[in-house]
């Protein structure tokens, strides 16, 4: 519109002023629309900020004023305010039921022309046209005044210019320019620092509009702006800032819109969040849903990767022999030897994958999600690559067992594990490993030959993962004797083993919680333990010490575990193969 046309429009003002009203509340929007009609404005309404932006971008000259609600689901009203100010430089009025001065301040800071409170009164709306006039007045004036001056002079001139502008609304452009130029000259010698005033920015915006935000080039903008003493470099840097600000706001707005849009989706997903990789909080995951990963993930962190690497390295060939149901592996093995470890190792870093449901064979002991059973095959257990066929059968067994277990309802504990690094050094040597466990048939020390022959997930279990500080012995050594005495090695034939016995001779079931002891008993029974002894012992240190010494003893001679110590701590069931001999030795110390 030329200046003359604008003057004409001003005469008719405020009748026919084009207002865009944005509010997600239908009631308020409808009322606002009617009120605005009453004021003889031309009204367009929308309940979404995004739509409003589109409408505005479609044709910048279509509207004179925007009225926007503050709280909208798809975009914050203040964001919309900023964007409109940046892109279209239209006056924006905020509307809200919040009378808190904080919001009013925020509105002003973001450039709102006014801030109205709901319920909106018609008297207030009758005056909003003043904002349009005010803004257009500034736009009309070409002020180059502050173009190349120092801050001081700029202020001075700015003030002067403003005053003049207010007084002489009908001023013709040339006059302004002259005045601006006059002021420029005396200060030309000063350091040329460009201060981007509103007026200058408006010219810049006009030029950018004309050229298109994407296509605008500093040189062309400069030409269009036609401002003295403004260099291409000034324009270029300003353009850069402008574009990045625009991008930032748009991204934030989009993010907000996206978040609002998929908010409900998130709500549903949140229950599945446990599927994520590591997370250090135990989740209460329903047993039946097969979402054990929560437990698995939590326990995963106990494993130092280095150790797993070695396991993986040692038994690569084993990987293929066992059916694995989870492609993303990373599962904690249950009585399965290496392959799971392999998976574990390989997939340790990919724990974000959702864990598949647990009908897989490997879940056997991963029972109660919250209990986070972890039975793991120590590396040394099965050095023998030869005897893998049993595994398949074991798989089946385990599967059966796991399925049974899956159907039990296990009480949940909300203990948090404290992840201490595991002292794996003890069974690092493969030699020691070999010394480790023998296959199911244990009845006393087995020869190496026997060991080598069988490679079963025997008492497969290890996993204590807490660092022993100084490995100090607990003072209640007395109880150890009790334990030792109560352990009764049982004979188990290979047949038994294949029928489903894991070769666990006896179990000392321990738990800090009574009901869990019961569970442990149940567990033992399920795997056909010959003997299980329950005891309550509140100190974890004891079993750990036992395991520690056991491990130490492994290095010396091959001995078979004659019993297994099960204990539960922090929701994790530890089953430790106990070397009776070692224990006995220790007790003799």
């Amino acid at each position, binding site marked *: 519109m030329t200046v003359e046309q604008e003057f004409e429009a001003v005469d008719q003002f405020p009748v026919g002023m084009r207002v865009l009203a944005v509010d997600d*509340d239908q*009631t308020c929007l*409808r*009322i606002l629309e*009617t009120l605005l009609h009453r004021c003889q404005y031309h009204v367009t309404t929308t309940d979404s900020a995004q739509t409003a932006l589109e409408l505005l971008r479609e044709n910048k000259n279509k509207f004179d004023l925007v009225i926007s609600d503050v709280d909208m689901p798809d975009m914050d009203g203040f964001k919309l305010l900023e964007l409109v100010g940046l892109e279209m430089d239209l006056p924006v009025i905020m509307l809200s039921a919040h009378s808190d001065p904080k919001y009013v301040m925020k509105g002003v800071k973001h450039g709102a022309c006014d801030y109205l409170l*709901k319920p909106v009164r018609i008297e207030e709306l009758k005056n909003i046209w003043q904002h349009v006039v005010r803004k257009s007045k500034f736009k009309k004036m070409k002020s180059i005044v502050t173009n190349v001056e120092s801050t001081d002079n700029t202020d001075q001139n700015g003030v002067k210019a403003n005053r003049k502008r207010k007084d002489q609304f009908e001023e013709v452009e040339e006059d302004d320019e002259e005045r601006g130029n006059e002021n420029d000259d005396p200060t030309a010698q000063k350091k040329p620092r460009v201060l981007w005033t509103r007026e200058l920015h408006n010219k810049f915006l006009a030029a950018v509009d004309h050229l298109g935000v994407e296509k605008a080039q500093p040189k062309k903008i400069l030409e269009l702006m036609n401002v003295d003493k403004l260099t291409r470099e000034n324009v270029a840097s300003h353009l850069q800032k402008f574009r990045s600000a625009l991008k930032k706001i748009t991204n934030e707005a989009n993010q907000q819109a996206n978040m609002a849009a998929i908010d409900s989706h998130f709500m549903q997903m949140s229950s599945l969040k446990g599927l994520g990789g590591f997370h250090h909080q135990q989740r209460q995951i329903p047993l039946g849903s097969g979402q054990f990963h929560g437990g698995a993930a939590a326990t995963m962190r106990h494993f130092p990767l280095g150790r797993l690497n070695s396991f993986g390295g040692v038994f690569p060939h084993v990987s293929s022999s066992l059916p694995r149901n989870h492609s993303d592996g990373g599962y904690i093995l249950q009585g399965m030897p290496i392959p799971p470890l392999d998976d574990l190792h390989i997939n340790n870093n990919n724990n974000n994958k959702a864990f598949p449901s647990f009908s897989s064979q490997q879940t056997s002991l991963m029972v109660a999600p919250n209990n986070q059973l972890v039975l793991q095959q120590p590396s040394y257990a099965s050095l023998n690559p030869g005897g893998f066929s049993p595994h398949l059968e074991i798989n089946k067994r385990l599967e059966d067992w796991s399925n049974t277990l899956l159907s039990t309802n296990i009480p949940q504990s909300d203990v948090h594990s404290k992840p201490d690094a595991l002292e794996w050094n003890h069974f690092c040597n493969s030699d020691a490993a070999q010394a480790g466990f023998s296959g199911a048939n244990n009845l006393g020390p087995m020869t190496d030959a026997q060991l080598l022959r069988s490679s079963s997930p025997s008492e497969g279990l290890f996993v204590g993962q807490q660092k022993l500080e100084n490995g100090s012995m607990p003072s209640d050594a007395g109880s150890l004797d009790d334990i030792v005495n109560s352990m009764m090695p049982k004979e188990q034939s290979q047949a038994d083993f294949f029928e489903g016995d894991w070769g666990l001779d006896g179990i000392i079931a321990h738990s800090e919680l009574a009901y869990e002891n019961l569970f442990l008993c149940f567990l033992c029974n399920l795997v056909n333990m010959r003997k299980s002894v329950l005891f309550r012992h509140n100190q974890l240190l004891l079993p750990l010490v036992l395991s520690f010494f056991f491990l130490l003893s492994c290095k010396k001679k091959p001995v078979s575990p004659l019993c297994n110590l099960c204990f539960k701590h922090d929701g994790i069931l530890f089953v430790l193969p106990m070397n009776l001999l070692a224990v006995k030795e220790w007790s003799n110390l």
Partner: protein
Amino acid sequence: MNTVVAQLQRQFQDYLVSLYQQFTELRKLQDEGTPDFVAEVVSLFFDDCSKLINTMSRSLERPENVDFKQVDSGVHQLKGSSSSVGARRVKNVCISFKECCDVQNREGCLRCLQQVDYEYKMLKTKLQDLFNLEQRILQAGGMIPQVNIS
């Protein structure tokens, strides 16, 4: 006939007086051009109201994880629309509701929610009566009295 009309008109006036100033403003906006303006707005309001109440009650349902933010935004919206429509009592409950929300008092919130529910239903009935009265006055040939509440 006239007495009937007069009676009805009096009743109407009483009703209006009991409502908020804003509501009469709203009624003023209604003219030949927009004959159903008030009815439309009011029914929009009731729809919004019931939706908001439902959302909020769902949020407040489980004591363990109440999403107070959501409840707060619901209350805010309700406050805005009720004040625009002129539902004064609803708006007042919203104010105390917001306070309960700010301190995350679930019981308080529940109570306020119930109150809001009650108030808006009351209002609904009242307005329904008002409209009926209007109809009857018109049918009886009378004019709707314009009541100015200062």
